[in-house]
């Protein structure tokens, strides 16, 4: 189950890869039932993202929260990278179904399929980025609230086994831009990842 938590944490972060700021012309009002569709449509149009992030983790074993920061990169359809720069450089890359962690000169790769319980999570989170609703709803109960200007997506794992490690993922944003991702773990620990400015190429 630790692997699942690991994969969720990894991919929760990745999910927050923001896209381009929405063009002004697209800022029309949206009604609730179609807003979710609209959001997914917008997300799917995104081909590339490169943003800064900060993350705060509340762990029950510690007295104070842990802070980290770095950059997130996304290239459609399935290349995701999290570069933690502070407090300690670490690079995490998901590409072609392989998860690679690099710290200093040490590099370790694992195949997603070696974690059969984590694989659906990762696939579904990747699907969110690609705007694939069917894949998303296969693994999560999805609750959408708000409108395209200001929205919140709550994902609850369908599989009770998975729910034992991750209770809920809450993603919020505006237009096709993700602002925060909160991961609530079943042991009470949680983390909040906040997306900062776009990093120009």
């Amino acid at each position: 189950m630790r692997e699942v938590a690991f994969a969720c944490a990894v991919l929760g972060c990745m999910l927050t890869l923001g896209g381009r700021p929405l063009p002004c012309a697209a800022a029309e009002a949206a009604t609730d039932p179609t807003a979710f569709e609209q959001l997914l449509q917008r997300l799917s149009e995104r081909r590339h993202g490169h943003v800064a992030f900060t993350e705060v983790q509340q762990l029950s074993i510690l007295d104070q929260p842990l802070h980290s920061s770095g950059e997130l990169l996304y290239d459609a359809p399935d290349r995701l990278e999290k570069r933690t720069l502070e407090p300690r450089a670490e690079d995490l890359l998901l590409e072609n179904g392989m998860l690679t962690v690099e710290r200093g000169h040490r590099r370790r790769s694992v195949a997603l399929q070696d974690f059969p319980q984590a694989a659906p999570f990762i696939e579904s989170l990747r699907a969110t980025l690609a705007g694939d609703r069917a894949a998303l709803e296969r693994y999560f109960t999805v609750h959408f609230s708000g409108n395209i200007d200001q929205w919140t997506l709550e994902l609850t794992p369908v599989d009770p086994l998975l729910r034992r490690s991750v209770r809920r993922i809450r993603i919020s944003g505006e237009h096709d831009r993700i602002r925060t991702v909160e991961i609530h773990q079943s042991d009470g620990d949680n983390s909040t990842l906040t997306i900062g400015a776009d990093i120009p190429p």
Partner: protein
Amino acid sequence: MSRAVVAGTIWLLCAGIAAVIVVHAHYSTDLSAFLPRRATATQRLLVEQLHAGPAAHLVIAAISGGDAAARAAVSGYMTQRLRTNPSFIAIDDGDEAQLQRDRAFLFEHRYLLSARVTPERFTAGGLHEGITEGLDVLASPAGPLVKPLFLRDPTLETLAIIESLDASHAPHTTAGVWSSPDGARALILAHTRASGGDIDGQQAALAALRAGFAAARAVLAPAQRTALSLTLSGPPVFAVASRATIRSQVWRLSSISAACIATLLLAVYRSLPVLAMTLVPVASGALAGVAAVALGFPAVHGLTLGFGVTLIGESVDYAIYFFIQRAHDFRRAVWPTLRLGVLTSVCGFAVLLPSAITGLAQLGLYSIAGLIAAALVTRFVLPAWVPRNAKVRDLWAPGEALERLAGRMQRGRGVLVGVALLAAALLYLHRDPLFSRELASLSPISAADMQLDERLRADSGAPDVRYLVVVSAADRESALAAAGALSARLTPLIDAGVLGGFASPSQFLPARETQESRRASLPTAETLRIRLAQALIGLPLTAARLAPFVQDVERTRTAALLSEADLQGTSLGRAFDALLVRSPPGWSALLPLSARSSGDLSPQAVEAVRSAVASVAVRAELLDLKGEADRLYATYLRDAVRLACCGLIAIVALLAIALRSARRVLRVMAPLLLSVLTIAALLVALGHALTILHVIGMLLIVAVGSNYALFFDRAARQPGEGSVPLILASLVTANLATVIAFGVLGFSSVPVLADLGSTVAPGTLLALLFAAMLADRPAPSAQA
């Protein structure tokens, strides 16, 4: 006493002595026959590794067919059943329980296993630094993995140990057990207790695996049962298979050759007693050959007996010449030429004697002893034994037909210039690579089995170990200590990005001295609490939270040191056993290295490792297994070519002395060289890279073919001695026997035997053909 009685008595005495030697000889069928006898220290290490190194014990069992759940069930059942089987040091299928046991061991003993445990590490400053690092990891994506351990292991020694283990090549997992990357095959890795030489032990282990599979499969529903199949590969499988192959092939090929040649001779002689007499020199030769090898070597290799089939092909010729070329003037008319022929053959085989390859040296000795014995029996025993009234079918008429044919062919001898030019052109076109450069080309394992092995190895993520540091010491403890000292020098190379990783037995069980000094680095609970309070200033947790850490340190500080018994039941124990081996006169620790990215080490990395090895005061050496093996083979090949050239020169010198005419030597040698050239061209044109065995085969073409050319030479020079039709008839019969013997060998599934057969069989045929075409015009009396 009559001559027959004297000859018979001496023969019987010799045969009796030889038989006693043969019965008491040692026979071996292991794979080392084609590895060097005399070698440098590095090469000896290499051979030792190929023979008994960690890889030599590994069997990869693949279960395919059916569905993933069925494969995993069978794999689990098999592994569980066989774990208690004494045939295996270890057997694993990557199940979760095994992984848990390994992790539990590393976690439990982290303060004795981690190289970072020093007195400085447990000062307030050292703890502050260590815990800060631990918190950094906790904040990273790997955080959820270390969170459950953090309060007991805040400096993350467990993680450091796991990272130092070179586990990047672990197999994939499907349905909870190891599998190929595509999940289609479940994999079990079994390490047999029996090593290289103990083929019976390895065979028992393989049988246990098959029985385990059958029993596990029986538990499934009938529909699934038939869908599943088991494939085994690895050095023990090769060793067992190659012994079985060599045994069955030696027996089968000898029987087929003998039966074919007997049929041929019966058809020619039309006389059973004569056929029986023909076999006397052959059998005597074989007996003498085995006896000579038994005396000259510690053990007779099975392959030598396989090659020995070739002896039938040549020694049977002597009796053929004896019976067909009018037995009554054999001593005067046939024997001088035959004697020269035997001597040239002996020259050819003699060059094999100094070969560094045991198999070839044995073949040389076997053949020399065998040929001399067969020739002596033909010369001294047959004439005494053959009754005056023994009748061989008169071959005059077919001989005359052959003579007319030879005459017609001689008119077309101009064609041979074209043949020579064409062959030379073909060889030139295929000049690179003319020779195979890999030691594997000498292996008695078939290409299909090699491919299967490569596939399963790739599946299991266990590529061939190419680089290995071998540390030697007088005893186990010193070998472990030396390995530990060397590991300390190699670790910085990983951090510097020069090396991908390495394994060392000291990672699983450090030397006692090392453990003692680590244990002595641990402060008492009271001191640790005081230091922690200081160390945690400015960090997001209080010392009270780390009580489990203090407890664990105190437990290790007061507990006994680790011993090999603690490794029992973990897969680390298996790795340890494989990496720390007895190698007389002492012990060796093996440290396999892996490159940073998949593939080979860069020259700079090799240099860096060499200087790291040199900087430690231990006896250690970096081995490049593949490079060393290929270098070894290149040496063999050079040797073989040089030896073959020496043999050729010796044969020419012998002919020059015997024939006393440059022109006659040229007449005799021309068809032989042309035949060798043509065969080499045919082989490369058919896509073969030439191996040492092809080179040896070419030498045999010259050795055997020289008999034919010498008889043609005699027929032309001394027309009064013997009749040309009968000589021709005997040559064709003798050649057919040789072609049968080597041709049968050519169909062998053992590559080394097949290479030799497919060179010599067509080569001797061409040698006879070319010798007939290039023979001097028969003297006038024969033409009449």
